């Protein structure tokens, strides 16, 4: 009996009129927890009742405290007939169970009814007295903190990262139970809301238990999803990263940054060995990882794709690694539910022993070395390999035994195994930036997972001294003792890690290839790193993570989207599943090609935050890939795009081609200007110069062992000699490539057209889907989070793929245009974390939902920052020169005249620059930074607390001082008077506004003034205009926090190395 829950109902206001005769309401309140219910007195004839009730006390198990929500129902007393319900409030009391989160819930909550929406507000006070329970076998996990944020929360430091936690619970969907036929829509909706609330609570509790077992105290990057499987049930699943977090005391916060990593604890992770990754059948290497030697699988055109594109990189060190061909199999065929899966991939059996040793550190012992984090503490991320992803098509059937949801578990397990083996194929022992998703249409379900293969610093996983991981053998192989800022140095003496390496993580280390140069898992162009020139890097890098703090970026980034629509025949069951899985690889390929072309067109060489969504409908599949393109200074400059005609004889045709070529070249030049991409000459070739060079080598196919199969492919890789400069630097391996588009069919023309028709972003706007935009630092406090939803009806049933593509592309482009227009008052501004979700709710309907935050920045100071950036990179050059000297390279041709030597330790600069930048952001004094105490809403007419919401993990110009707990809410809204509510748009508009209002109210009641890492994970909209009905389900989540404006007393050193500030990972402590 370890808890006492107390609730007090204070007052109500703005209640609806329930008695037409008197225009008043006789309201009373029922307070329910578990099976216990209390009632207040009736407060007669008032729309603003003052109940001022006693404290209702519930004595309950902490298990129940975690699972159950507190249910508050407001009713209208009716003497003669049944009491009418006005509406309900569900309060999740989980935040009260952790001593570090909120201590009391107090405030005005909107009273919500699933049919009528918000109907007035109620003021409630809730407290919990927890008794300590030392029972080892307890089923509760009170006190484990949950964070939606996918980085280390701001006022904590990470002592240990335990790894992946997942759980899944299943139930019957009340909407599909027999009883639903006889109960009212309201009762049915409420049953559903209650059930999902219960299931979320249970899920969270179970995950908490796993975390406690692992020895952790928190879950970071907690991602919970619902699968509404219809007849076959309701699945609530969650993944996250278990960590041990230490709270930073406010005083120490700023300066502890660099030491956070030195703490290590015994690894308590379960040691299940998963080395033998049974990647039996089809895996689906997404972009970057197509292996050169297809072991099986249809000779798809896809294969060439990787040759031109992708990926990863790694330090060249483990030369001795003997790898056979990679073990990723190429078959891009997705797994099919029935086991009739497409091709059989083969496990690369002889997975290099060395590699195994190398990875057999802490990570290897985990079942799933998978992390949901997208931002990392400094030094955590060693190398990044590239994107790994898997899709699997399943047929849903009824879940027979909800208590043992084995099938669903097994499905995800398979997927994670595949992800893991893909990562291995890339020479990586871990996957970061991992996420899972589903798309369901009738009985077909596509399960998707993706992440970024990476090498991590094992120090964070287990005790440092035991580490025998990569750094060691790296060390032995390449002892360059003097190198600063290279990961090689760290391994030398493990003790040096603690202070030294952390202080200055190499800014280019993460782009170095983790796989073996001579046995690459797929063909890629390697060059020496343009930053340190010691290690090999790939020509292009795709990742799902945020831009690492230390990454050096040239210019600004931008949102890059690939969109695709594919029709498919209507079918049932297995046939349907098969046809879908046959389509998937083509879609992935096309999306990838689009991404690559668009990336080149912007003269960029890396994608971050890549998210590919494939949605299934009855007669079509939608694919949408979004990512933020940047120019990583450490990677080679991208070549241009070359158009080649197939039939050279025709003069007019040639002309056509040269016109197109010109347009493309112009666009590239324009984009370079737009995104300010002017890489220092020392490191890069002028791509234009390049184009001239390589025109003759177009047909030369390099790096692809399978030229013959490329018949249908239009992508080739051409090479040319690198410039003199490069050879002087002994970078002769650096091959330049231009992308060649061969126009031999209408498809290609379409492609090029679509490439060029992406509307340019209006002046003053930037956009990205990562946390922040590289190149912008001086955010003001101007902030606008928004959600926009559009549904298009395709009137013409017989559309071709091209026609559909066009429509879909226009839909997305127009949506973006509308957003820019709507937010024009915030210019200059950047739309951050643009998150698109597509769905096919019905035949011939396409739904696109976008959630993002617009943040304005200060143009004046931006220029100063740009200058500082120059200075910063000069600073960086210093370091670089040092290492170059060691290597006997020339150091002089540095074109940064402002470079100045500095004795300031880098870490200090990192911190200071961040502070100062945020400082400058706060000159707009907002009246709302009132003291925390006063943000509590009082029963009287105190002003409503302003609650900011953002999908980012931070608010510019502020410091998060406390995390109050996770907000995870699920709402259903239904109407039977659609026209009267303003049609579908009016209905959805008010529902979304209501959801925002309820989220804000809960945050305010916890004492918070912002919700960070907000996301709308589900927005399912169904309508039946003929019956004048519509229904919508929305699931939102985020972290409630208290923030304060940066105060003036903090250090205001000059803006150095501003690039550091762009990343959120840099300041786990700020």
């Amino acid at each position, binding site marked *: 009996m370890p808890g006492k829950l107390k609730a007090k109902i204070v007052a109500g206001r703005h209640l609806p009129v329930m008695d037409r005769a008197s225009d008043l309401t006789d309201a009373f309140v029922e307070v329910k927890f578990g099976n216990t219910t209390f009632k207040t007195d009736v407060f007669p004839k008032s729309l603003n009742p003052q109940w001022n009730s006693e404290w209702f006390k519930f004595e309950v198990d902490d298990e129940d405290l975690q699972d159950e929500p507190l249910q508050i129902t407001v009713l209208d007393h009716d003497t003669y007939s049944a009491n009418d319900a006005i509406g309900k409030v569900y309060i999740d009391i989980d935040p009260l169970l952790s001593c570090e989160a909120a201590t009391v819930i107090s405030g005005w909550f909107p009273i919500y009814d699933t049919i009528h929406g918000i109907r007035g507000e109620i003021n409630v006070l809730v407290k919990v007295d927890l008794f300590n329970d030392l029972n080892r076998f307890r089923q509760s996990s009170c006190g484990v903190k949950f964070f939606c944020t996918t980085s280390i929360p701001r006022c904590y430091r990470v002592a240990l990262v335990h790894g992946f936690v997942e759980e899944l619970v299943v139930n019957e969907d009340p909407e599909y139970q027999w009883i639903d036929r006889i109960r009212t829509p309201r009762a049915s909706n409420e049953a559903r809301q209650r059930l999902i609330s219960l299931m979320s609570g249970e899920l969270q509790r179970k995950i908490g238990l796993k975390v406690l077992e692992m020895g952790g105290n928190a879950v970071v990057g907690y991602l919970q999803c619902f699968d509404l499987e219809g007849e076959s049930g309701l699945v609530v699943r969650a993944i996250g990263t278990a960590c041990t977090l230490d709270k930073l005391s406010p005083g120490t916060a700023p300066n502890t940054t660099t030491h956070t990593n030195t703490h290590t604890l015994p690894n308590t992770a379960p040691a299940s060995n998963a080395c033998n990754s049974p990647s039996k059948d089809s895996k689906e290497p997404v972009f970057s990882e197509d292996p050169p030697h297809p072991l099986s699988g249809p000779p798809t055109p896809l294969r060439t794709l990787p040759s031109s594109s992708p990926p990863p990189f790694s330090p060249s060190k483990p030369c001795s690694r003997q790898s056979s061909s990679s073990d990723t199999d190429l078959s891009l065929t997705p797994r099919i539910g029935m086991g009739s899966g497409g091709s059989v991939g083969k496990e690369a059996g002889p997975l290099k022993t060395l590699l195994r040793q190398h990875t057999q550190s802490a990570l290897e012992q985990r079942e799933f070395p998978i992390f949901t984090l997208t931002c990392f503490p400094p030094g955590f991320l060693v190398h990044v390999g590239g994107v790994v992803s898997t899709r699997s098509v399943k047929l849903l059937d009824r879940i027979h035994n909800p208590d043992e949801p084995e099938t669903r578990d097994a499905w995800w397990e398979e997927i994670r195994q595949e992800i893991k083996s893909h990562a291995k194929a890339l020479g990586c022992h871990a996957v970061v930036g991992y996420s899972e998703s589903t798309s369901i249409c009738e009985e077909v379900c596509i399960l998707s997972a993706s992440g970024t293969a990476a090498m991590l610093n094992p120090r964070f996983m287990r005790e440092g001294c035991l580490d025998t991981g990569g750094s060691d053998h790296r060390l032995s192989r390449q002892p360059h003792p003097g190198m600063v800022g290279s990961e090689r140095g760290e391994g030398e003496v493990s003790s040096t890690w603690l202070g030294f390496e952390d202080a200055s993580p190499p800014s280019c280390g993460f782009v170095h290839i983790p796989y073996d140069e001579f046995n690459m898992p797929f063909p890629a162009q390697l060059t020496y790193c343009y930053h340190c020139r010691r290690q090999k890097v790939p020509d292009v890098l795709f990742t799902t993570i945020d831009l690492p703090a230390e990454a050096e970026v040239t210019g600004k980034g931008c949102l890059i989207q690939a969109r695709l629509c594919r029709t498919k025949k209507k079918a049932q069951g297995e046939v349907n599943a098969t046809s879908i899985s046959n389509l998937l690889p083509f879609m992935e390929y096309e999306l990838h090609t689009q991404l690559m072309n668009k990336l080149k067109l912007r003269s960029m060489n890396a994608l971050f935050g890549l998210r590919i969504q494939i949605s299934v409908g009855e007669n079509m599949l939608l694919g949408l890939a979004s990512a933020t393109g940047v120019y990583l200074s450490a990677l080679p400059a991208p070549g241009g795009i070359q158009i080649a005609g197939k039939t050279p004889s025709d003069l007019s045709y040639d002309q056509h081609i040269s016109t197109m070529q010109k347009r493309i070249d112009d666009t590239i030049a324009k984009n370079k200007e737009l995104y300010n991409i002017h890489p220092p000459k020392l490191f890069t070739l002028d791509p234009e110069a390049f184009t001239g060079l390589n025109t003759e080598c177009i047909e030369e196919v390099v790096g692809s062992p399978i030229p013959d199969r490329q018949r249908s492919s239009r992508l080739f890789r051409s090479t040319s000699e690198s410039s003199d400069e490069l050879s002087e630097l002994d970078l002769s391996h650096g091959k330049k490539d231009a992308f060649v588009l061969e126009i031999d069919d209408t498809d290609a023309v379409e492609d090029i057209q679509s490439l060029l028709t992406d509307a340019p972003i209006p002046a003053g706007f930037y956009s990205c889907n990562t946390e922040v935009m590289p190149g912008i630092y001086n955010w003001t406090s101007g902030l*606008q989070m*928004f959600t926009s939803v*559009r549904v*298009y*009806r395709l009137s013409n049933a017989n559309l071709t793929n091209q026609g559909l593509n066009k429509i879909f592309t226009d839909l997305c482009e127009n949506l973006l245009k509308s957003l820019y227009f709507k937010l024009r008052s915030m210019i200059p501004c950047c739309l951050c974390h643009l998150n698109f979700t597509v769905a096919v709710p019905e035949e011939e309907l396409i739904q696109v939902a976008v959630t993002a935050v617009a943040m304005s920045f200060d143009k004046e100071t931006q220029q100063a920052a740009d200058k500082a950036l120059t200075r910063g990179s000069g600073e960086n050059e210093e370091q670089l020169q040092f290492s170059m000297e060691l290597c006997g390279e020339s150091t002089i041709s540095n074109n940064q005249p402002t470079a100045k030597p500095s004795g300031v330790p880098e870490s200090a600069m990192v911190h200071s620059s961040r502070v100062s930048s945020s400082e400058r952001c706060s000159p707009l004094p907002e009246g709302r930074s009132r003291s925390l105490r006063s943000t509590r809403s009082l029963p009287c007419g105190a002003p409503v607390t302003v609650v900011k919401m953002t999908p980012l993990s931070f608010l510019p110009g502020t410091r998060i001082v406390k995390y109050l707990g996770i907000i995870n809410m699920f709402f259903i809204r239904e109407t039977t008077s659609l026209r009267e509510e303003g049609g579908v748009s009016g209905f959805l508009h008010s529902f979304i506004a209501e959801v925002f209002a309820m989220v804000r109210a809960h945050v305010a009641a916890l004492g918070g003034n912002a919700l960070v890492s907000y996301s709308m994970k589900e927005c399912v909209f169904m309508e039946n205009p003929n019956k004048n009905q519509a229904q919508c389900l929305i699931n939102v989540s985020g972290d409630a926090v208290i923030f304060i404006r940066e105060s003036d007393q903090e250090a205001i050193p000059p803006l150095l190395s501003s690039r550091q500030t762009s990343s959120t990972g840099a300041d786990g402590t700020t």
Partner: protein
Amino acid sequence: MSMELDVFVGNTTIMDMEVYQLWLDGLTVSDAVKVRMDEGALLECEANAEVLTSDTMDQFRTFQMCERLLHSPTKLGSQLLYQIPAQNQRILIERYYEFDSVFAREVLGKKLSKGTKKDLDDISCKTGITLKSCRRQFDNFKRVFKVVEELKGPLVENIQRHFLLSDTLARDYAAIVFFANSRFETGKRKLQYLSFQDFAFCAGQLISYWTVGAVDVWEPNDPDMDVDLEKEFLHELKDLKVLVNDKDMMDQHKILVCAALRGKIKVYKLMEVNFKNLSRALINLASKLTHTKDVRDLFIDLVEKFIEPCRYDRWTVAEITLFLTHYTNAAHCLGTFRYQMIWDRYMGVIKSCILQMYHE
């Protein structure tokens, strides 16, 4: 292909005040889009017609959803549904309650009941204001009237407290409420030349000097202190009759006024001739005000009995000012005249009303 659904919801509700004005003016979405295009909205942010239509529809929907809250502006501040910065809340409310004086002029003094609503069509045709906008303005009048009608205390303050309006706007509403309550005649052809501002000014004078609240400190039990004229005062006005009934007094009065004005006004001759008529007009007006009917006719009487004769004789405003000033002051010098207080209270208001209503 058609857009089935298109919504945009910000955590902070985005409101474009220019579009708000178009909405308030009762434009349809397509008309509003046209206006915006003409105003050059397409030049911003590389917008196209589609973007503009989408934005306009969205804004109109937002305003429509907020309209319910604007009906009781105090709720706007405490509601949780829309997060609107305080500054914007003020603008929203103020603009929502702003009205066209042409429209207000038409409705002034009429009963704010449903019956009148049918006349809105006519007013809309006559004024060129859209019917939708007329409805909103009329409903606003009615709403404010209904709320403050029941309330005690100073009218303007009540309006400000319940509708959070600016001082100027609250005073205008007070005028409208006052006129609607007393049902002053404003519609006669002879009154057509008067604008809403003229009447609003007069209403302000009446409220300030002739109501209960004008003299007394407000007490909780006083009913309708600002809405109704003070009965006692109106009754006492009968006493002023002595100024015309007592011949000596009247002559004396005339002499005093003439002495003061001689050589100072061009219309002196005419004034001298007409003095008794003018004086009688003003005094009779005062003595009749005990009857509701005559109170209603206050303005028409002023025009017919005083303003028109003066205009006929081509008095200038300055001359009228001078005349009324001395006419008022001279009464103080009449040894037998005992009603100085009432005289001043009466003449002060009459004088400023006449001056406001006298258009040369």
